[in-house]
């Protein structure tokens, strides 16, 4: 069931991202695919394997990038990190998590910027997006911290 939900939600995210692009709000909104990943690595008990991450990145690139590289590479790295890490993602300190999210967002946006000719606002997105992603994660973290502490 969770597998089906994972693929279904990915499809929905693709549609949502297309809507954000069509309404010119993409540049000033958080990266919904990263947020989606954060949700799924947080709320689902078993972390998906590395191949799912590669597939996810590739699918996103297919629909939203001229070259299938920015998301594929970023998601390969995310998948490797999450699968190889000895510590659970939610067990890390908030600062560590925010630094990681910021770095990944920055890396991803720089790749997107260098391989695509998206509409205006791409320059703004490089700075806004890491910040927005971090804020969203902080909100999730603050909300769920008590629950995680019980379960760890």
């Amino acid at each position, binding site marked *: 069931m969770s597998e089906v939900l994972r693929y279904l939600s990915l499809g929905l995210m693709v549609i949502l991202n297309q809507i954000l692009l069509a309404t010119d709000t993409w540049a000033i909104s958080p990266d919904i695919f990263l947020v989606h990943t954060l949700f799924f690595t947080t709320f689902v008990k078993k972390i998906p394997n590395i191949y799912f991450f*590669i597939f996810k990145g590739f699918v996103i690139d297919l629909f939203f990038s001229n*070259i299938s590289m920015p998301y*594929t590479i970023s998601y390969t790295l995310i998948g*490797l990190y999450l699968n*190889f*890490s000895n510590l659970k993602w939610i067990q890390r300190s908030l600062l560590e998590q925010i630094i990681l999210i910021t770095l990944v967002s920055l890396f991803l946006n720089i790749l997107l910027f260098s391989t695509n000719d998206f509409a205006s606002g791409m320059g703004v997105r490089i700075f806004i997006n890491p910040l927005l992603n971090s804020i969203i994660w902080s909100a999730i973290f603050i909300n769920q911290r008590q629950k995680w502490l019980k379960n760890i």
Partner: protein
Amino acid sequence: MSTNILPFQKKLRLALLSFIISGALIYASQNYNLNEKAQRFLVKFLNVPQQFISQVLTEYREFENQKIAELEEEILNLKNQIYENELEIKSLENSRSFNDFNFVINKNAETYINSFDQMNFTCCNKHRIYINNPNNLTDGMFAVSQGNFAIGKTKTISADEMEVRLLSDPSEYISIKTTNGFFCIAKGTGKGRLISCLNESKAVSYSYGDTFFTTGFDGIYPPGLIVGRLENISSSQINIFQQNLEIELFFDPYQSINKKVILHE
């Protein structure tokens, strides 16, 4: 969420394999132009719901506009009703009914206001309304009233409408009096709904709020029509016996469209 602790060799193998798969996917998408195809498919796939949503939105907006138009019309009707009721109250305050005339009204003398020259009213001291020509009159001068309230007199008459110069027009004069017996000739001030007259004798007293009626002396307006209320009294600096009286007219041209008026020969 759970993590499995993998041995280093397996990690290395997995990492290598991941990069090879990623590379292969990137290569394949470039080679077969998959990105362009996928993007075209997505646009086509979303085109149908997009059209549907935009159609629904357009219809909703049209529905809302229609609702707004209906409400605006209702508000306008209510405003008109309020205005007419207010006039009726003012009539009763002056001890007469709105439609109780002390002169004979010809049935054919009733007509309707069809337009108001708002631009000249606000900018250029030219205060005009236009009424329908009920009996295809060709010449003559008629006083025009709304019920018991004096409006002005006709100026030019064409086949289908008559131009009415309002009392507030600077070239318009009217003979008026109060119930105390104070008489004066009032002149339009060029300001909206205001006329003024001079008092030189101070023989008869008057005070703020006094209502003025037509005397009928000018031979145009029938006697007893309600004109307005005394709003302001100012003294002249040159002649201490002279005072300027400002009278606010009851007739409001902004609320006049489609109202019934009477022509007095």
